[in-house]
């Protein structure tokens, strides 16, 4: 797994908390830095795609393993 600048554990949280926490976590980063989010909400897959599309933060990586979803976002410059 690639190195990231910040990690966010959103496991066990349900909609819309993973997105809200992600937004907050991104606020602490500067443009170009990356954030890894781990979530268990199955709705997160679509939500993170939609979040990235609408906010301009790039979804660099998106994966699933053992019921956990991992997303890596790069903050918009």
């Amino acid at each position: 797994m690639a190195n990231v600048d910040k990690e966010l554990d959103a496991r066990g949280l349900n909609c819309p908390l993973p997105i809200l926490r992600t937004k907050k976590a991104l606020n602490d980063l500067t443009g170009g830095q990356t954030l890894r989010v781990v979530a268990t909400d199955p709705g997160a897959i679509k939500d993170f795609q939609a979040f990235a599309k609408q906010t301009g933060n790039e979804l660099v990586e998106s994966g699933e393993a053992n019921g956990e979803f991992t997303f890596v976002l790069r903050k918009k410059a």
Partner: protein
Amino acid sequence: MSTKKLAIIATKGTLDWAYPPFILASTAAALGYDVQIFFTFYGLQLLRKSLDHLKVSSLGNPGMPMPMGMDKWFPVLAQALPGMQGMMTMMMKQKMRSKGVASLEDLRNLCAEADVKMIGCQMTVDLFGFQPSDFIPGIEMGGAATFFEFAGESDICLFM
């Protein structure tokens, strides 16, 4: 690209209907929207300092799933018995906690942190005899014209 705007009218004062305005407002704010919620009639309950008094009722709500398939065999009339509403509310809160659904207080705080503008309907405040001290700080009071000032410019306008 100019900032998108979401305007919501919140009119319900029950535990279940308190969620949609706060969920959508906080999410829209996270997506970069400018958001205003106008709380009118029973929706004003959602601006009170404590939200512990909000209840959910199975009465008149045939779509509400109940534990042990009670919605199939438990008489509707019996749902009107004293204590039933409190029990339903307690069970709903437990279920929400166990599923990782945010508490209303948390969602409302997240809205406030994200600069969601919350406006209480002045007319309803007068009608029900609320005091300014009944409500959380940081809200505004206004009338229908105040709402339209923002709603008229909005990209999305929702009545709940």
